[in-house]
């Protein structure tokens, strides 16, 4: 574990001068300062005073967000960027005071929590507020205020109380949103619907340049955004570009998000300190540190998820009463390098090696120990890429992707087998990465045709791969060669899940087109899992 304790900013005294009081009164905010903790490795500003810049231009152009809901807490996020694509969002090097408010009502008549965070240049003027003391399983509204500028209002929801009997919940999951390959039509649909939480399973940005005119978006961008991201400023710029999208902003404002990373937040198919093209290890560690830092700055997560150089604590749990436990996994940082040189290969000594792991030993133990608690009816693995075997070659020969769990067969056996041994009632995997929808029944050992122990719902990309179609050739091959695959679709979209004690319903929402701005989203299929029966029914 690379995380160390984070020394809080040592603030001995805050002078509450007259001007400030006037400002806070005008904003309707009670006095009281909450200063965010400093990050490891991040120097604080050289100024001995915090000047509170009023910012002439509207600073909330990257939207707002909330995330990582607990029964008494959510994290609120924004980043001040009046000119999002300029270095540091066009904010100068002075710290900026950001007032935040949490209310029980949309009009902020019943404000229940409020405070001030200082947005600093070394954090690209992002703020993370870990709001505590909230009540479980209820909606709250939040907003930020800087000078005369008021942010949009976001809606969020805390998690239920521990062990609370929950009759049902609704959530969405999404992944893979290459900027230049489409519009975020899926998020427009997601934002218009009610979700208790949204899970983002990675590829929120891509490291690749977006092209001089953003591909299908036909939006010219500064040269910095046409390069592959290596430095912190480049990763920051890429998040800023993606987050200017109004549909993405709306989806963040509509529900709390729980976010992990896949490969493209750093680099295609990276594996721990090993880069795609075997860049020198030292060089790649610096790149990882830059990538993780920018991810943290743009994601509503707690300080526990702040990186310490090239290490970051991403795997964590979210409990929804006695109904659902989300185990958010990190299958990039601790994995062994892809077997057989990556790509798609027949099963080989590397992919079958019992010593290799996609989670790393510590995370595997954490996951299995958690499963032993049998804390919820639906035990969910929320993670990056498919666990199910996916033979992509027609005919008797088998060829499988080396980047999915097919390249780490031992992890599949240990974790699926571990769930069975621990008496997990309903094991469900949700993932992304493939840019296609694939719903499968999970077996510990496909070759030996061991019993089905769980189900898997891989969601398609939001945009990556452009419009797609109902089935492409690879999809037809996957359906023909893998009898455990019960559903496939190659359009873009997201998955909306409604879960109660009796059943899990996965609604695959797909866009007719993403290469135009006005595509429409509809339900392609609803897939159902009954409680206690690890099988997928297609309705």
């Amino acid at each position, binding site marked *: 574990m690379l995380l160390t304790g984070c020394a809080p900013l040592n603030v001995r005294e805050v002078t509450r001068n007259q001007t400030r009081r006037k400002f806070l009164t005008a904003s309707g905010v009670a006095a009281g300062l909450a200063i965010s903790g400093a990050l490891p490795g991040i120097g604080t500003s050289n100024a001995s005073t915090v000047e509170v810049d009023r910012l002439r231009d509207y600073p909330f152009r990257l939207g707002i967000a909330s995330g990582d809901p607990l029964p008494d807490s959510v994290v609120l996020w924004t980043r001040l960027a009046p000119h999002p694509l300029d270095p540091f969002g066009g904010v100068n090097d002075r710290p900026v005071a950001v007032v935040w408010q949490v209310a029980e009502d949309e009009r902020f008549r019943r404000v229940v929590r409020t405070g001030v965070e200082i947005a600093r240049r070394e954090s690209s003027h992002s703020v993370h507020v870990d709001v505590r003391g909230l009540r479980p399983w209820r909606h709250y509204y939040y907003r930020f205020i800087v000078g005369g500028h008021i942010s949009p209002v976001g809606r969020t929801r805390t998690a239920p109380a521990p062990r609370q009997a929950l009759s049902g919940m609704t959530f969405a999951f999404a992944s893979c949103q290459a900027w230049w390959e489409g519009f975020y039509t899926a998020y427009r649909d997601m934002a218009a619907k009610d979700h208790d939480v949204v899970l983002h399973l990675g590829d929120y940005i891509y490291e690749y340049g977006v092209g001089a005119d953003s591909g299908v978006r036909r939006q010219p961008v500064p040269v910095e955004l046409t390069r592959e991201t290596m430095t*912190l400023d480049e990763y920051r710029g890429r998040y800023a570009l993606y987050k200017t999208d109004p549909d993405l902003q709306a989806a963040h404002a509509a529900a709390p998000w729980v976010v992990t990373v896949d490969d493209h937040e750093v680099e295609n198919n990276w594996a721990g300190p090993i880069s795609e093209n075997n860049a020198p290890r030292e060089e790649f560690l610096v790149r990882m540190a830059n990538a993780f830092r920018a991810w943290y700055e743009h994601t509503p997560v707690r300080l526990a998820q702040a990186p310490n150089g090239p290490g970051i604590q991403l795997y964590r749990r979210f409990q929804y009463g006695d109904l659902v436990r989300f185990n958010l996994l990190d299958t990039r940082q601790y994995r062994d390098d892809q077997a057989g040189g990556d790509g798609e290969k027949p099963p080989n000594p590397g992919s079958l090696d019992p010593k290799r792991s996609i989670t790393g030993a510590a995370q595997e133990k954490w996951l299995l120990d958690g499963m032993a608690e049998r804390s919820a009816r639906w035990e969910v693995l929320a993670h990056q890429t498919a666990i199910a075997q996916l033979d992509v070659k027609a005919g008797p020969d088998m060829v499988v992707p080396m980047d999915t769990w097919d390249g780490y067969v031992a992890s599949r056996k240990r974790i699926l087998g571990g769930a069975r041994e621990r008496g997990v009632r309903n094991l469900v995997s949700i993932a992304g990465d493939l840019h296609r929808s694939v719903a499968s029944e999970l077996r510990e050992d496909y070759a030996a045709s061991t019993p089905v122990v769980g189900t898997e719902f891989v969601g398609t990309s939001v945009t990556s791969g452009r419009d797609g179609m109902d089935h492409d050739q690879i999809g037809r091959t996957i359906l023909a060669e893998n009898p455990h695959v019960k559903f496939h679709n190659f359009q873009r979209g997201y998955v909306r899940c409604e879960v109660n004690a009796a059943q899990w319903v996965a609604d695959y929402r797909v866009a007719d087109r993403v290469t135009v701005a006005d595509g429409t989203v509809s339900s392609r299929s609803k897939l159902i899992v009954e409680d206690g029966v690890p099988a997928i029914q297609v309705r």
Partner: protein
Amino acid sequence: MWVLALTATMLAATAPVTISVNPEKVQVVGLPCMPGSLKVGMTNTGTTDRYADLELSAPSPVVADRKIISTWLPAWDPDHTVTTPVGVTVPRTAKPGTYSLTLSVDRTRRTVPVEVLPLPPKDNLVLGEQASASSTHGSFRTCGAVDGDADSANWSTRTGWNDATRAVFPDEYSVSLIAPSAIGRVELQTLDSARYPAAQNGLRDWDVQVRVAGSWVTVDQVRGNAVGRVKSVFPAVQADAVRIVALDSNDHAYSRIVELEAYAR
């Protein structure tokens, strides 16, 4: 403006950063795709890891392709230098002479001389002119196929263009001229070296297009290519841009152009 006074105890001494530059002097001509280039190194010479922001300030007419380099700087022993390439261009109208580029991090400053050379005469109309592409792989620069280096031996280290979308076609690579000019011949050098022969890794199928009065006109179609250099000769037209629409490569993975050239005849 109002001020919150904080105590100075919050100030931790930040580790010192040194700047290195290679080469120490940059030469450049007034063509958009023929940037002068330098590598800027930042080294943390202290004992604690830190992040640092290096600001680049380029007084007119010098234009740097980035304004800032922010990066994590580990305090490893031995010291580790984080190196970032910087491209420097000047407008076509820039007067030859010596200018400067200033780099600063914390209180350290470094000035790099930038020598602007006169525009060279050229037969290859697209040499150094503005290139754009449907996508460009991170190890390459979009300008890499109009930089005058057609040598496949320098592929990916110093020159060439490679798209970023593996196994997805078509890919497009285009070069714009500042004014219409007669174009009657386009030559394309695809990757063709002992290690990467064209028959295995080179561009296989493509259309050659020129832009005439705002519309793209296909002047040649190359199919089934297996060699390095392909000439497309056609009746000269007045055009202000050249475009390659890459339809497939011999490994069906990436479009690879080492150099694209266009001539009057």
